[in-house]
């Protein structure tokens, strides 16, 4: 059985206090708790501070180009469905340049888990407006404050048919780890948005802000994560400042829905056509 150190990769270079440390820690704990083997896991990450997660986590990794984590991760999974595949990125990577892929990945429902480290700002490029920046938020690219309506990842995911929608906070590692465990175990595409404060460039969406404002769905005994209407209402009531598993609904995965797709990892098999295969295939041209 793998232990915590097996899931450690390179030494992180994030700013001290960065929310992404919490995400990394929670993910490492989750992997241990689930008894996963780091070399049966792949983390596909995008560009930005969050993109470094693949190097710092101890699994196989693919640090891809900006905004394309989801297509790449789906490709990995389709090549070998026996692997545990995670895609990780930030709010810029996923909801800016990569937004189109996000919606289609949810529709497609390939069995991967998508973590978004949402800090409402572009950090690695030293502080520009992000798609989730609050209206009026002042950055280097919006000196008079952001004027565009922010992306609402949770309600967007619900309306796109995502079968697992959750939100965590990197300041609450036990809860985040519990969410990630369920997300990885969920059969199908699972989406976990994570409040991951940028301590250097965002003085508005801080640890303190989330600690004092966040509502946990688990504190509501009436809450039912199988109810889409309740999930929508909860997001509305809390203005999305809510954590926990908001919605879980099982629908057949892409892998189980496309006709005849291999039940075992394609990458582990030999794929050679026999003479008889060729004879059969050539008949149509005769």
């Amino acid at each position, binding site marked *: 059985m793998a232990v915590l150190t*097996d899931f450690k*990769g*390179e030494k992180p270079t994030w700013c001290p206090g960065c929310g992404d440390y919490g995400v990394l820690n929670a993910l490492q704990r989750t992997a241990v708790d689930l008894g996963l*083997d*780091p*070399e*049966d*896991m*792949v983390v*596909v990450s995008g560009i930005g501070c969050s993109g*470094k997660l*693949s*190097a710092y986590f*101890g*699994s*196989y*990794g*693919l*640090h*891809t*180009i900006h905004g*394309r984590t*989801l*297509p*790449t*991760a*789906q*490709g*990995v*999974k*389709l*090549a*070998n469905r*026996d*692997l545990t595949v995670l895609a990780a990125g930030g709010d810029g990577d996923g909801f800016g340049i990569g937004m*189109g*892929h996000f*919606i*289609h990945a949810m529709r*497609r429902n390939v069995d991967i888990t998508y973590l978004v480290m949402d800090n409402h700002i572009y950090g690695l490029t030293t502080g520009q407006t992000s798609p989730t920046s609050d209206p009026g938020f002042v950055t280097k690219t919006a000196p008079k404050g952001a004027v565009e309506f922010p992306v609402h990842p949770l309600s967007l995911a619900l309306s796109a048919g995502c079968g697992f929608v959750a939100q965590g906070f990197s300041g609450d590692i036990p809860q985040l780890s519990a969410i990630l465990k369920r997300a990885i175990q969920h059969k199908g595409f699972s989406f976990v948005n994570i409040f991951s404060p940028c301590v250097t460039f965002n003085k508005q969406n801080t640890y303190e802000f989330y600690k004092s404002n966040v509502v946990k769905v688990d504190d509501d005994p009436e809450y039912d994560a199988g109810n889409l209407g309740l999930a929508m209402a909860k997001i509305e009531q809390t203005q999305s400042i809510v954590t926990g598993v908001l919605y879980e609904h099982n629908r057949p995965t892409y892998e189980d829905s*496309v*006709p*005849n*797709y*291999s039940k075992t*990892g*394609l*990458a*582990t*098999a*030999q*794929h*050679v*056509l026999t*003479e008889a295969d*060729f004879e059969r*295939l*050539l008949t149509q*041209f*005769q």
Partner: protein
Amino acid sequence: MNGELGWKVGGEQGEGIDSTGEIFAWTLHRLGYYAFAYRHFMSRVKGGHTNYKIRVTDRAVGHHGDDLHILVAFDQETVNVNWNEMVGGGIVIADGTSGEIQHPETGDVHFCSIPLTGLAKESGSAIMKNMVAVGVTAAIVGLTPEDFLSVIEDRFKKKGQAVVDSNLSAVRIGYDYYNQHFSHQLRLPSRPVAIAPHHLYISGNEATALGALAAGCRVLAAYPITPATEIMYWLVKYLPEYGGVVVQAEDEISAVNMALGANYAGTRAMTSTSGPGFSLMMETLGLAGISETPLVIVDVQRSGPSTGLPTKTEQSDLYEALYGSHGESPRIVLTPTTIEECFRFAVEAFNLAETYQCPVILASDLYMGMSKGSIDSLDTSSVQIRRGKLVTQSELEGVSRGEFKRYQVSEDGISPRAIPGQKGGRFIALGNEHDEFGIEMEDQSMRVLQMDKRARKLQSFHELSGASASGPKDAQITLVGFGSTRGVIDEARTALMQQGLSVAHVQVSVVAPFPADLIRPYIAGAGTVLTVEVNSRGQLADQLRLQLGYHDKIQSCLKYDGDPMLVKDIVKRAKEVISVGSVN
């Protein structure tokens, strides 16, 4: 007529023109002839002129031919557009059902007005006008209606015997009508005596798709686009039979990254596209290059720039295939020159991508991809799967955690590659510059080592010769083409030789790495070099100048009006450049 017959059917798009052509071509193919079919169509579903040209020969050819002997015209526009292709003694069958179709009073052409639609209506349905036209053609060329039975059965059996019978009867009606009213005959070429066991009627796209399947490709991620979609269609039918999957991605960026992800994880995967989609894939070419991830991209080129002429052929993506994407990384660019090569190169593309751990671009074009031709075999027996330096689990024994050098600076520039799931092979594939372990870094000396390592890879490239040549090295004129123009250039060479010229032909099938040593003697020794290209800039000529020099003797025959190259285009241009040369 010299061993061949050019036949064309034309009319409004959406009226069954293609199926008329298909039935005629398939019938001739099954009788043992060689058919080569070129489709002319427009980017709309209904209306607009479309035509289907079939060249029937007694030998395999790679071109639809300049000449037209029989034209079946369902409307006025078909006559207007195609009249000037008619040869003396040719026959035009015009549908006279709703008024006489007009035609120029030029040339020695027999014009036969026949109520094709009217006869079809009498036999049951106007839709069968196409079958009536097939029957008329049969009468002209000396076939019998029964010759068409096997193809008609294959097409209509599912709809019941009554449908088969009524189609065959429509053929008979056309056949009888022609024989009763007209007497002009044209002969088919002599019928080949023996039919090869694998006498196949197949398109470049189908051959490419079959090659991918044979290579072990089990994931195709693609976005529909003319003229590459048939590759998707074919694989969506056959990949599932082998456990694989075709993913219709949301866009080409997604498609290429899915293919990259799947290759990284150890399953052979590709994407197929055309110019606009290929343009969207540029960033991932760089990622595949620096992360040394195998990647196969099929670009079935069409006319650009932008949307260009979306249903017309062109060879104008060569610059993009060679240079597209920022930064510098190695890549392989294959340009298959025959349908057989589409198959062979598709197989080889996957081997090369894994051997050299870099992107391989298989660039065919609309003309190659969508034209169907009769060939005598596909080389299925020599299909091999070579996975390069992919490590086995046993080779990883004893490699301790974090010690696997995925990007080892090796002599040949190629490093051992592990795939997820293997124990001891953990690494990060990444778009950032990195050290030998795949750790992101900015160390200057390691940066240079890694850049040089990647650049070194293709020095050992030896798998494909890259070009083929015929004719003398010191020819008066040497014709040089790449990709789909092999057939037409070969015929132009013959025509020029018949006029007493000394002519050589070099056809380039691998543009990168450029087969300079093989080509150089033919350029060095030639009086004049004429590149033949379906683009406006002479992109291949630029490669010759860049790789070999000889700027003063390289000229080009270029076509970019949407139509494929013809023999006469090349002959005319060759004579122009030779006469200018001789004046000097």
